[in-house]
Structures are given as structure tokens and as C-alpha cells.
């Protein structure tokens, strides 16, 4: 479309053409001078009550020597939306499989390990007292026996 584009960028001029897919071909719907506005228009076109089967935004640049170049900067079709949903589903399934594998590997790894030893029972304070009494009683008995032996030896 050889019309003077709207926006001038460093000697070249650029416009954004919003195109709709209708009747088996792309048709010009509207023109914007800013990319964000063009994409907003394309989205509104796609979500409208009589939305086409596809929309795209073409950045059209005309150089000072008259040459044209154009590139698609946005595209949306039901197929694109379907593909995007499929990618999301695929990533979700991959995450679930990965989590399952990690759980399974963890369980396998620790399956053959010996069971951990039972924790040692801590002796209570009462046991320490009994032991002290036993020691004292034993020492006293020994001293008594030594004294009796000394008396007998005299």
C-alpha cells in the first residue's frame, strides 16, 4: 500500500497496519502510528462480537529512497491461542512428571538403607542417686572390713 506512512523515524517512516483474516486473505482493517496502540486495536478487533478468524499487526517502514519493508509484530488466531494453551498444558504435565520422578527416586534411594538405631534412653536423675548410694555403701563396707582386719591382726 503505497501511501505516506504516519510516523517518521530517522529518515524512514513507519506505520502499523492492523489486518484481519477474512475470506481466505488478509485485509487491511485500520492503521495506527504506534505499536502499542496497533496491538490494542488488534486485540479489540479479535475480541469483538464479530471477531475475524485472525488478526495481525504489520510494521510497515518506508525508507527515504522509497523502499518498503514490513514485518509482523503481532499475530493472533484461534490456532495460536490453541497452541499457547497446549504449551501451558505440556509444561504442567512435564512439571508433574518431574515431581513424580524425584519422589520415586528418593524413595528408591532410601529403600535399602538400614533402619536407624533406636535412640538411647537417657538415665534419669533417680538412677544417678542409686548409683551414688551404691558406691558410698561399697566404700563404707570396704573401710569397715579393713578396720576389722586391723583389729584382728593386733
Amino acid at each position, binding site marked *: 500500500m503505497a501511501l505516506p506512512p504516519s510516523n517518521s523515524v530517522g529518515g524512514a517512516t513507519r506505520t502499523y497496519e492492523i489486518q484481519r483474516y477474512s475470506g481466505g486473505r488478509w485485509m487491511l482493517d485500520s492503521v*495506527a502510528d504506534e505499536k502499542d496502540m496497533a496491538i490494542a486495536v488488534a486485540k479489540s*478487533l479479535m475480541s469483538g462480537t464479530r471477531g475475524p478468524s485472525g488478526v495481525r499487526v504489520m510494521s510497515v517502514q518506508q525508507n527515504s529512497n522509497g523502499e518498503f519493508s514490513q514485518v509482523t509484530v503481532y499475530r493472533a488466531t484461534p490456532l495460536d491461542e490453541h497452541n499457547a494453551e497446549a504449551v501451558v498444558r505440556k509444561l504442567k504435565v512435564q512439571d508433574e512428571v518431574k515431581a513424580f520422578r524425584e519422589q520415586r527416586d528418593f524413595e528408591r534411594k532410601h529403600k535399602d538403607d538400614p533402619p536407624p538405631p533406636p535412640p538411647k534412653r537417657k538415665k534419669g536423675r533417680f538412677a544417678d542417686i542409686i548409683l551414688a548410694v551404691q558406691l558410698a555403701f561399697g566404700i563404707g563396707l570396704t573401710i569397715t572390713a579393713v578396720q576389722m582386719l586391723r583389729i584382728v591382726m593386733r
Partner: protein
Amino acid sequence: MTTYPGMPVARQTEEGRRLPNPAPEKRLVLRMLELWRRARKDDPLPHASDITVADVGSDAEHVYMIDVLDPAGPRFTYVGSALHAAGGPPSSGTLVAECPDETVLTLTARHWREIVERHVPVTRGGIGRHGGSSVLYRSIMMPLADESGRISTLLGAVNWRALEDQHGTPAE
């Protein structure tokens, strides 16, 4: 994101899923474009008789219409009150060529020929002068056809905000 009182806020369910916002489009350009598309139906262009100023509701003060078939040249047939108030003349009946400089109306209406040649709506925006101040504006012009399918009228809309007013109404 800029918000303003009364601006609709996207809702969420208890599970956090976003619900579609039922509120009307807040951007003037997209509202006008949707109106134009609805009037077009299955025709290449909407008929001039299918859209009147009354159809644009509260946006009427930011709207203008141009008769491009006037023998004297493109002529305003309607100029919204906001465009009157801020820029003084023109009023209905003024030729586009006589539109005073440094108004948003001139910034947008002077490109009328592009819409006639492309046969599609064109949006424009940027920084310009309006009423003695620097403004950031956004506009749209859309073609309307007569009974023979020839473009007879252009429907335009523009809004703006002063660049100094960072907390004012957001430019749409």
C-alpha cells in the same frame, strides 16, 4: 497503571482466577472504533446515516465530523464542545483548511486525506500544542460512506492531557 475514580478494576474469584472485565472500554479511540465496526456490519464501510453524534453518547464533546464532498473543500459539520472550548474556533461549517493552528483538532483533522485514500480508520497520537500548552493527544478518524459506497464523511475523535498535569485524566 494509571487509575482514576470510578475506573473498573478486574475481578478475581476466590481461587485467584481472573474474570473478564464487563466494564466498557476506557480508551476513547477503541470505543469509537468498536462503534464504527458495529455500524459497518458486513459492509466495507458504515453508512454516514448509520452513525450520528447521538450514538457516541458522552464522548460527543470530543468528537467531530467532516464532510469531505463539500465543493469548497472538507468542512466540519460537527465539532464537540470540548474541542470548541479549548481551542476557540472552529465551529460547525468551518473549512478544515481554516482550522487554527495549535489545536488538537488541526493536529488530527489535517490528515483527512489519508483516511479517504486508505478507506480504513487511522489512529494518531503524540505531542502537540493545544490552547497554548503542550499536550499528549490520541485521536482517530474513521470513514463513512454515502449510499453509493463513496466516502462522504469522516468521523473523528480526540482527547488529550496537558503534559504538565501528571495526575490529570490519562490520555486514552
